[in-house]
């Protein structure tokens, strides 16, 4: 029974991380029609930041690190968007290719700077003691992650549904031409959303550190998961990203635990099923 | 086939909505075989949306479409071409880098089994080439057959669009604003071309400018806000008060 509980919680925490990662991806894709293949690398930058900074600076706690990484990665993303992506407005394929190129650059840079070994990220001190609930023992940090992701989902939802920025984003997702026609500053909006998505990915990377550790190839492991979540959940849909993340979290965790060698196949079964019957994803409105 | 089917096209209670906006509201019409029908209405009346549902580019939310008696409501567009529907577009969608002859040949190829053939180029089919040239000749553009589309004038491109559609010898021809953007001279050329189409082809045209295509039409359907307002022989529709209302906003 403990096994199922633990795997269940692991699923939830993986789902939480995936949501943080893929919400940004989904927004960027939905608004900018850009498959940002750098997204995994943004996440990994956050994890490496956590690994290095948290070990070097005793006074730094993981929450500040997440904030710091989020801002730093957002800035990096913003520069990339302004300097490179905007020049390729007429070339959507080119945009994807440069994000791929950028992901190679970032991942190799990490390899170059921090070597090929996996660097663990310490779990915050005050969350190291396990929690007892209903007679079972839960790793506290993972519980906190799930709470954080849910909180982030709520914040993002409020942002999208209740703020002017959110309204502009939703308008842009629904109909970019029309949004431009009614005066929404689409270009600035793009930069904002890209920064937001990148920043969330970076922060997520920090938060995922204690669970995943920083290692070369983390970006290549996370990106396909984000892709599958977004295809499954539907592009541009926050609810889709939320639901999809947890479906994948459960599928991957239980799959790896029960059938370790087939985990990857089990992983993409939900995606195939959804594509077969509902190509726009569970909650999407835009066709992939 | 002993008797020809009476109606080339029957649309029954067609409805199409995009989110909260209903663009086609309970539209019904019947077009007789060989008829020349003009669909008119102000901008936004839903004419092109209606066409798109007839050609298969859009799926209606409810309702029925019958082509020569056979139901085609949810048939994919490419199969409708094989059932005898051809269309032209409001925005010219020819292949700009290719020659006029190649463009028409593609139209011919679309209905032939040889479109699946993977070793001989189109130019190796002499019968297709001569048929393409004949189609271009019929619209007066044979002399430009070897030129790329990008070289020729807008009015000439409209004629090529027509040639491509006619080359398929369609039973039902949908013309979406065929006279749009043409000079007076070009307009009369295209009009006479449309007028000379054989009666084996039923023609349905969309025009939003009422005067231009009226003399080509035998029957007229007036659409506004997605509904059929008036439907019937040309002179009856012109004389109808509601027609004037729609166009003058009365």
């Amino acid at each position, binding site marked *: 029974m403990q096994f199922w509980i633990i795997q269940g919680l692991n699923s939830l925490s993986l789902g939480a991380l995936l949501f943080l990662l893929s919400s940004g991806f989904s927004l960027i894709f939905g608004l900018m029609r850009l*498959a940002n293949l750098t997204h995994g690398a943004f996440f990994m930058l956050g994890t490496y930041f956590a690994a290095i900074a948290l070990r070097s600076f005793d006074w730094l706690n993981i929450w500040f690190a997440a904030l710091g990484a989020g801002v730093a990665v957002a800035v990096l993303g913003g520069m990339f968007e302004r300097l490179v992506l905007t020049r390729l407005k007429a070339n*959507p394929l*080119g945009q994807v290719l440069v994000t791929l*190129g950028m992901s190679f*650059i970032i991942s*190799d840079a990490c390899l170059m700077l921090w070597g090929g070994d996996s660097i663990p990220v310490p779990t915050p001190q005050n969350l190291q003691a396990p929690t007892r609930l209903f007679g079972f023992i839960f790793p506290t940090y993972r519980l906190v992650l799930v709470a954080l992701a849910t909180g982030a989902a709520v914040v993002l939802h409020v942002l999208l549904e209740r703020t002017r920025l959110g309204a502009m984003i939703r308008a842009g997702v629904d109909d970019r031409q029309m949004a431009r026609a009614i005066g929404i500053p689409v270009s600035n909006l793009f930069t904002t959303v890209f920064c937001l998505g990148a920043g969330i990915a970076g922060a997520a990377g920090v938060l995922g550190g204690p669970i995943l550790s920083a290692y070369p190839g983390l970006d290549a492991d996370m990106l396909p998961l984000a892709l599958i979540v977004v295809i499954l959940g539907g592009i541009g849909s926050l609810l889709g990203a939320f639901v999809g993340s947890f479906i994948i979290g459960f599928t991957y965790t239980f799959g790896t635990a029960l059938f370790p060698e087939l985990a990857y196949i089990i992983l993409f079964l939900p995606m195939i099923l959804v594509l077969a019957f509902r190509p726009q994803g569970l909650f999407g409105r835009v066709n992939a | 086939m002993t008797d020809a089917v009476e109606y080339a096209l029957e649309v029954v209670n067609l409805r199409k909505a995009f989110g909260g906006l209903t663009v086609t509201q309970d539209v019904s019409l019947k077009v007789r075989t060989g008829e020349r029908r003009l669909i008119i209405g102000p901008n936004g009346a839903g004419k092109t949306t209606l066409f798109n549902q007839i050609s298969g580019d859009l799926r209606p939310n409810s309702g029925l479409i019958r082509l020569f008696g056979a139901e085609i409501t949810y048939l994919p567009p*490419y199969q409708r071409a094989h059932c005898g529907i051809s269309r032209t577009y409001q925005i010219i969608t020819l292949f700009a880098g290719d020659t006029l002859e190649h463009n028409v040949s593609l139209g011919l190829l*679309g209905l032939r089994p040889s479109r699946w053939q993977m070793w001989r180029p189109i130019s190796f089919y002499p019968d297709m080439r001569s048929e393409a040239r004949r189609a271009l000749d019929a619209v007066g553009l044979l002399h430009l057959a070897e030129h790329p589309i990008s070289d020729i004038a807008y009015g000439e491109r409209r004629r090529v669009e027509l040639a491509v559609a006619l080359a398929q010898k369609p039973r039902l021809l949908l013309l979406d604003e065929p006279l749009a953007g043409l000079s007076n001279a070009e307009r009369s050329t295209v009009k006479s071309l449309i007028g000379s189409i054989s009666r084996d082809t039923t023609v349905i045209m969309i025009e939003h400018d009422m005067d231009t295509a009226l003399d080509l039409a035998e029957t007229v359907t007036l659409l506004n806000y997605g509904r059929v307002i008036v439907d019937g022989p040309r002179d009856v529709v012109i004389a109808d008060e509601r027609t004037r209302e729609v166009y003058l906003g009365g």
Partner: protein
Amino acid sequence: MKWIGAALIASALLLPPFFAGDFYVNLASQILIAGIFSLSLNLLVGFGGMTSLGHASYLGVAAYISALLTARYGFGHGAAAFISVTGTVAMAAFFGVIALRASGLGFLMITLALSQVLWGLAYRMSNVTNGDNGVTGLTRPSPFGISLDRPAAFYWFTLIVAIVAFLMMAIFVSSAFGSSLKGVRDQPRRMAALGFNPWLVRWITFVYAGFWAAISGLLYVYYHKYIHPTSLSTTSSAEALLGVIAGGAGTLGGPAVGAALVLLLKNYVSAYIERWNMLLGLVFLFIVLFMPAGIVPGFSKLIAAVRGERR
């Protein structure tokens, strides 16, 4: 002018075994293999308008099947090659159905996800694929009893396959079907209205591209006598895509030139710089930003400009 170009290409292809040392002959073989692979990808990207980031899957799977069948299960090369190609084509048929549920970026994402899944499988199913160690101890086939172990012999074999591949793909692309493919790439709605079935045209092309990728996969494993999960990786697919785009997608010869350049770059650069991936990324950025149409179109424009100035 055309004849000079043809003569140059012919000599570039025919001379190496006679004048160059083993290292260069081997390099030439690798270039030919990469050329076939890039051309197969170009059927999708340049002529079909379908950008795939998972094409290396087909090369890798074909290579792995052949490797495992010959090394582990004692199959002869002929049978292994047949099973390998058939299996890979079947996989392409299946993946094509999945990937073509979407188009454009959705298609790209699905091909990427699918290829990552395969890579993960190759990496983790160690008892089948030997995981990170790869499959070693492979041999080259001996068609008609002729050994391909010497560089020159292998080169001639590869050259023959490459010429056949190039010709068949060129014929495919210029055929009536090829015209419909290009039409569907440019105006899918219009083509559907004319009676073409866009999905089927794309799917057939996807499978055919998978076929030639499988062929290049066989040549690849014969050449290296070794196969490793990296050959299935996204980096591998990305290199091929770079070759296609750098060389000029939608031209026949361009991708082969691009593939050659990427391979040469990789070979020479990795001797001096460890960070090949970073360089690859930078080259991607450079090409996309400053030479989006690729080298071959850029070059022909240059020649046309020079000629124009002479008059």
